[in-house]
């Protein structure tokens, strides 16, 4: 008896060496983040000192006059990501619900593998496909007809273009779809079978069971999948660069060209000369990181609330 108590007392704390090792390992990730931000900050210093806080609200981007502002890029990044999420989320969850359903295993296996393969396609390939296939299709079958009929509404106004905010959002939607549906499917599969059965046994239809019981039970995980997808959308560079039109404008129309933080960095970094121009690009990188952090923290707070309240 006493033996046992002593033993448990001794084993409560891990050996010192082990604790040091794990502490160091677990601190390395935040340290790395801090280091990256610090270096970026240092590199961006010329722009930071020159433009100050105005940088994030200024709308001009002129390498000739050295007049730089981040707002059009922040706008482009946020709007494409939000639009992509709005398109991909309902589809992704619907796909996940179907894939997570027990029964018809072979079809679901094939479909599930297809979704996972979609995630494995390199983004530059998505970009090519978007530029040569998706953009012309969207232009003739969506943008033109919509602009003709609903052009009086701000977001559809102006002359539609093949490379536009809308096309970029669509590509992004396709790219985050596999992440969304694959993770959501796994989350939905992990919902205890008893929950589904209990709902069915109470006379719920398949639809009611999925919508009222299974999805709510999985919502924390689905939210996690959404945040992951949003992170990918915010930072996605090459495919977006190929189809967004690369124009630092803030147009009300989603059919107009735009620019994102990641795209402008990728496009202009090699040609940026002097001191201020490259520094401004680095500062855009800094803004992108902070934007991603902000979104993640916001998501974390949201998920805390939604999980803790009615469980």
């Amino acid at each position, binding site marked *: 008896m006493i033996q046992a108590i002593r033993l448990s007392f001794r084993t409560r704390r891990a050996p010192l060496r082990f604790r040091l090792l794990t502490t160091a390992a677990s601190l390395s990730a935040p340290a790395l983040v801090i280091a990256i931000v610090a270096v970026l900050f240092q590199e961006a210093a010329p722009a930071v000192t020159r433009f100050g806080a105005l940088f994030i609200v200024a709308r001009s981007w002129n390498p000739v006059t050295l007049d730089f502002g981040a707002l059009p890029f922040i706008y482009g990044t946020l709007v494409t990501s939000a639009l992509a999420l709005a398109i991909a989320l309902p589809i992704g969850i619907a796909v996940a619900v179907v894939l997570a359903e027990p029964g018809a295993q072979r079809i679901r296996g094939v479909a599930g593998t297809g979704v996972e393969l979609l995630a494995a396609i390199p983004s530059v390939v998505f970009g090519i496909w978007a530029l040569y296939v998706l953009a012309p299709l969207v232009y003739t079958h969506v943008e033109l007809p919509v602009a003709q009929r609903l052009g009086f509404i701000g977001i559809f106004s102006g002359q539609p273009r093949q490379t536009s905010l809308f096309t970029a959002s669509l590509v992004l939607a396709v790219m985050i779809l596999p992440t969304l549906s694959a993770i959501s499917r796994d989350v939905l599969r992990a919902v205890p079978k008893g929950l589904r059965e209990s709902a069915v046994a*109470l*006379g719920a239809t398949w639809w009611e069971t999925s919508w*009222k019981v299974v999805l709510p039970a999985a919502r924390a995980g689905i939210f996690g999948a959404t945040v992951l997808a949003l992170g990918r959308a915010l930072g996605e560079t090459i495919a977006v660069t190929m189809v967004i039109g690369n124009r630092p404008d803030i147009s009300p129309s989603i059919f107009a060209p735009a620019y994102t933080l990641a795209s402008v960095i990728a496009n202009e970094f090699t040609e940026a000369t002097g001191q201020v121009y490259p520094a401004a690009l680095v500062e855009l990188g800094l803004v992108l990181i902070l934007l991603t952090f902000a979104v993640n923290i916001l998501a974390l707070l949201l998920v805390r609330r939604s999980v803790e309240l009615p469980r």
Partner: protein
Amino acid sequence: MSNLAAYRRPMQSFKPDLRAVPGASPSTLRVQGLSFYYGKTRALKDVSFDIADRRITAIIGPSGCGKSTLLRVFNRMYDFVPGARAEGKVLFEAEDIVTTNRLLELRQKVGMVFQRPSPFPMSIQDNVAFAPRLLGWRRAQVKEAVARSLQAAALWDEVKDRLNAPATSLSGGQLQRLSIARCLAVNPEVILMDEPCSALDPIATLKIEDLMVELASDYTIVIVTHNMQQAARVSDYTAFMLMNQAERFGELIEFAPTGELFNQPRDRRTEDYITGRFG
């Protein structure tokens, strides 16, 4: 001392008419020549018996003999198992459960309580209101149903002050009574219970058993149990099932009023099982 007396809880008061002969009370479910298959493997062969109205019928037998399978036929829960198929008839209110396509109605009338409680991720109140809301009942009706069913499930006093608390905050025994309340809410005729006490401590088990006996005055209850004392304590009729070792399907060996089955089993195998000489 008879077998039954050995199993019985002391002071347990039985309703006097419970020792009735089969057929004394009208039957709710009539199982006729029921066979069941999981794909090509047969799980049940030719099961026939009648389940008495507003009585407790226990299904006992060793693990894997098909008790759950049989129970799940009664509200068609097997529909979700790929390749599962039933043959024969189960008559309920002049309709054959095996072939009916009014499934939602069936499941409202034949409720089920599972072995492990599965509280929905919502409040206690919403859990009980789940089925009434599916049926589109009005607010007042739903509210009334929640109170009525929580009372009937002997849970009201424990939760009446925290109806909006998450259901997951309840203990295991309370959760199982919540499951019962959940299916009582839409006034079922039959309540199926698959080992409802196997995850509970003795006191919570006794509470559920008392509750079952009480509910049996209004509902027909079918319970699967591994606990023969429990079958002896609460049930009016007992069905004993066994796996046919040669061909590996479950079959009904004996069905009789509980007292008879435990005290004068007609089949040798029943006697072996209840006296513990089996397996």
